[in-house]
């Protein structure tokens, strides 16, 4: 009897054990994944790992654009346990008005909305407090906000972003792939109080790349300041400026006016957002004569001193006559055609070059095609296909008509002359994540000797007393350049107006150009709106500051050649009309004032280093106990102070070496 009872009890126990075992196996084996997932849903919180959009720096590491992470609070109104309690809680934690919050929550609840943003950009402590509550109806989401800490500086280069931080213009748009960050995800195991215990990286974040631009914010600032002043002063409707290193195509400054603040939200098609330097082509006018004369040097026997018949200022073509504004120019050297900016002379030279060669060199200089700069707004300009040229198109093109160019294309063309004949590729991006960005190799399009001849002729534009670009002269640096004043064509009346696109393109120093600056003012008026009057002074201001900032050694003595001021000159069609009143920087007596206070030089006399190599220069300098500041390599070509000058105590001698 007793054994039977025991067996019954054992059977019941075994059955109970079997049931427990079955449930254990069911929980741990068959439904393992389900319950693990269920447990994770309760214990784990997905945390977004922010991946901010890449920062934009200037070439010296100054921040131009950066994204700052922020957090926003949202709720799911459909999950709210109690509207009043939620309004109380959120109002207290987020410092919001309770009544207004309650109304908003109620409205969202009545509308059956599953998402309601409560507050943007909450501070860190507020976000932490809400996370600690661990309510399933409150969420904190990461956001990012783009800032442009320099305001409107380089606005057209940088561009802007939309509400989702997607680039809409400028570098922001062109480098969207690199700048855009992909956020990651982290699974955070929390305790009952919502405190994190352990986290696992589910998906790594990929922050946007840090981009270092070629822009120098100091030069950019001066460029924008001077451009704005010139546009306002000369009542132009727009202006643009490009400063570039002619040796490698690095754009140091790109300014466009009117401008805007990229921190402000984009509203419609704001015309201020147009980057005039790359987006709006214009007829260049006389600056294009540089292309004509370069083609002449390459394809004809013409030399700078070759006589060119300017036909008394009127060149007759089939069906039209081309005039200079000031008649009277007869046969003058080709260099003077450039210095005086004679239209008839340029057309005469163009006739020597021939239409086919002219077209070929226009294309070789990069006109009619994009430069490839990292701006999607870039316009290719306009060069008619050769088969669409009319009978007199070659004449128009010779003096810069019937073509449309951008300021950047002009800078690219000026760089060809400045760097010895290479077509370089302008670019804005220096580094991506501290890795240098490769640049397409330059292409030779001019023979070196012809490039040097062009440089000397362009120097005449600035240096010669009758040159049209005298206002571009720099103190201590040799300058080459060309002015342009193209009448604006009215598409409605089909006539040229008396409004001009005043342009100056130039480079300095002449011996080893370190800087190309092209300035264009659109819509200047009358003779006071010529390029030599409106654009050359901007070049002067910007180039002076840029060369100082770039620490480019001077290649001219500080002594001013006063003789230049006294020489009278003829006015041509595009020369400065008020040249007599022009401030000549080389004759500015104010600059001499500080010298009068300096004690008389007491050091040794400067030796003549010209023609010596660096080793010999340094040896001789060491022997004499003087310090030399060498620049470049090769043979000494230029020195400052010049030979024979007594040195001040402690004064250094700068010597420019050229190969």
């Amino acid at each position: 009897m007793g054994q039977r009872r025991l067996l019954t009890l054992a059977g019941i126990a075994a059955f109970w054990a079997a049931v427990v075992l079955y449930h254990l196996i069911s929980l741990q084996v068959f439904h393992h994944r389900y319950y693990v997932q269920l447990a994770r849903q309760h214990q784990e919180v997905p945390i977004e790992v922010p991946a901010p959009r890449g920062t934009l720096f200037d070439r010296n590491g100054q921040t131009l654009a950066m994204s700052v992470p922020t957090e926003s609070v949202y709720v799911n109104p459909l999950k709210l346990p109690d509207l009043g309690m939620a309004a109380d809680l959120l109002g207290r934690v987020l410092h919001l008005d309770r009544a207004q919050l309650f109304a908003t929550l109620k409205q969202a609840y009545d509308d059956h909305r599953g998402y309601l943003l409560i507050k943007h950009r909450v501070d860190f402590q507020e976000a932490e407090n809400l996370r600690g509550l661990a309510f399933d109806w409150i969420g904190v989401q990461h956001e990012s906000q783009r800032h442009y800490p320099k305001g409107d500086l380089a606005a057209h280069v940088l561009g802007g972003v939309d509400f989702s931080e997607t680039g809409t213009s400028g570098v922001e748009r062109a480098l969207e792939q690199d700048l855009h960050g992909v956020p990651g995800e982290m699974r955070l195991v929390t305790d009952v109080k919502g405190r994190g215990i352990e986290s696992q990286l589910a998906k790594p974040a990929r922050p946007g790349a840090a981009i270092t631009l070629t822009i120098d914010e100091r030069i950019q600032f001066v460029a924008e300041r001077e451009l704005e002043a010139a546009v306002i002063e000369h009542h132009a409707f727009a202006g643009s400026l490009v400063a570039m290193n002619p040796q490698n195509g690095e754009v140091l400054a790109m300014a466009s006016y009117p401008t805007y603040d990229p921190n402000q939200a984009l509203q419609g098609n704001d015309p201020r957002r147009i980057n005039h330097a790359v987006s709006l082509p214009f007829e260049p006018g006389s600056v294009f004569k540089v292309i004509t004369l370069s083609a002449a040097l390459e394809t004809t026997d013409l030399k700078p001193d070759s006589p060119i018949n300017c036909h008394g200022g009127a060149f007759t073509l089939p069906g039209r006559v081309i005039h200079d504004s000031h008649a009277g120019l007869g046969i003058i050297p080709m260099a003077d055609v450039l210095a005086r900016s004679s239209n008839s002379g340029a057309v005469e030279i163009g006739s020597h070059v021939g239409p086919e060669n002219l077209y070929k060199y226009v294309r070789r200089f990069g006109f009619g095609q994009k430069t490839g700069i990292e701006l999607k707004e870039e316009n290719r300009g306009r060069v008619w296909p050769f088969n669409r040229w009319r009978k007199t198109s070659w004449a128009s093109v010779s003096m810069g008509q019937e073509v449309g160019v951008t300021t950047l294309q002009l800078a690219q063309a000026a760089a060809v002359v400045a760097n010895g004949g290479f077509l370089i590729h302008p670019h804005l991006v220096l580094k991506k994540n501290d890795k240098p960005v490769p640049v397409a190799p330059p292409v030779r399009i001019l023979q070196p000797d012809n490039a040097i001849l062009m440089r000397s002729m362009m120097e005449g534009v600035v240096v010669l007393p009758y040159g049209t670009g005298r206002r571009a002269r720099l103190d201590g640096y040799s300058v080459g350049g060309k002015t342009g004043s193209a009448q604006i064509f009215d598409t409605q009346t089909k006539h040229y107006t008396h409004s001009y696109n005043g342009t100056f393109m130039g480079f300095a120093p002449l011996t080893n150009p370190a800087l190309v600056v092209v300035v264009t003012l659109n819509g200047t008026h009358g003779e006071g709106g010529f390029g030599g009057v409106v654009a050359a002074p901007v070049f002067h201001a910007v180039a002076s500051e840029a060369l100082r900032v770039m620490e480019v050694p001077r290649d001219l003595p500080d002594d001013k050649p006063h003789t230049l001021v006294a020489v009278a000159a003829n006015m041509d069609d595009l020369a400065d009309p008020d040249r007599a009143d022009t401030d000549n920087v080389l004759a500015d007596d104010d600059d001499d004032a500080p010298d009068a206070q300096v004690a008389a030089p007491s050091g040794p006399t400067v030796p003549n280093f010209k023609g010596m190599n660096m080793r010999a220069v340094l040896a001789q300098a060491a022997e004499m106990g003087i310090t030399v500041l060498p620049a470049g390599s090769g043979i000494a070509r230029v020195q400052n102070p010049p030979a024979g000058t007594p040195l001040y105590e402690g004064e250094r001698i700068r010597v420019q070496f050229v190969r």
Partner: protein
Amino acid sequence: MSTLPNPFRRTPIAHAAPASAPHTRIHAARDPYLLRPLPGEDLRIEFKTINNSRLVREPDPQARGACWSAIAAGALCVVLLGGALVPRLLNTLEGYKLEALRVENRRLLDERRNLELLEAELTAPQRLQELAKHQNMVVPQSGQVVHLNTPASGDATVAMLP
């Protein structure tokens, strides 16, 4: 002593109550004028002093070993349990610290970005120009610029420009 209730009345075993007492109670209950008994009045607790001083426990030669075995087993269990639980506990505690540090790290990174932004705003050329204007500062003229620690070019060491 007579006021004490019966249950606490210490009665030596040698002076045990007479056996006739319950009968008296029974007879009293029949008396209509007699009060009814208190609950438990008929219970008595006897105390007896037992002197075991003369008893001697018989020595068990295996008891000592069994005792130590039990202690060792207990200790082993504690060690095993501790070995299994302590790392987990420490892991959890360190996890708290780690997560707190991660949060702190993120907060500091955010703060650094905000400070970098502030620095960039403060060093904006436009702002510097305004400040310079207020302090009557001007851009140095050519020839007034002094370059300190200019990188040497070639073999020459350069200190400053005139």
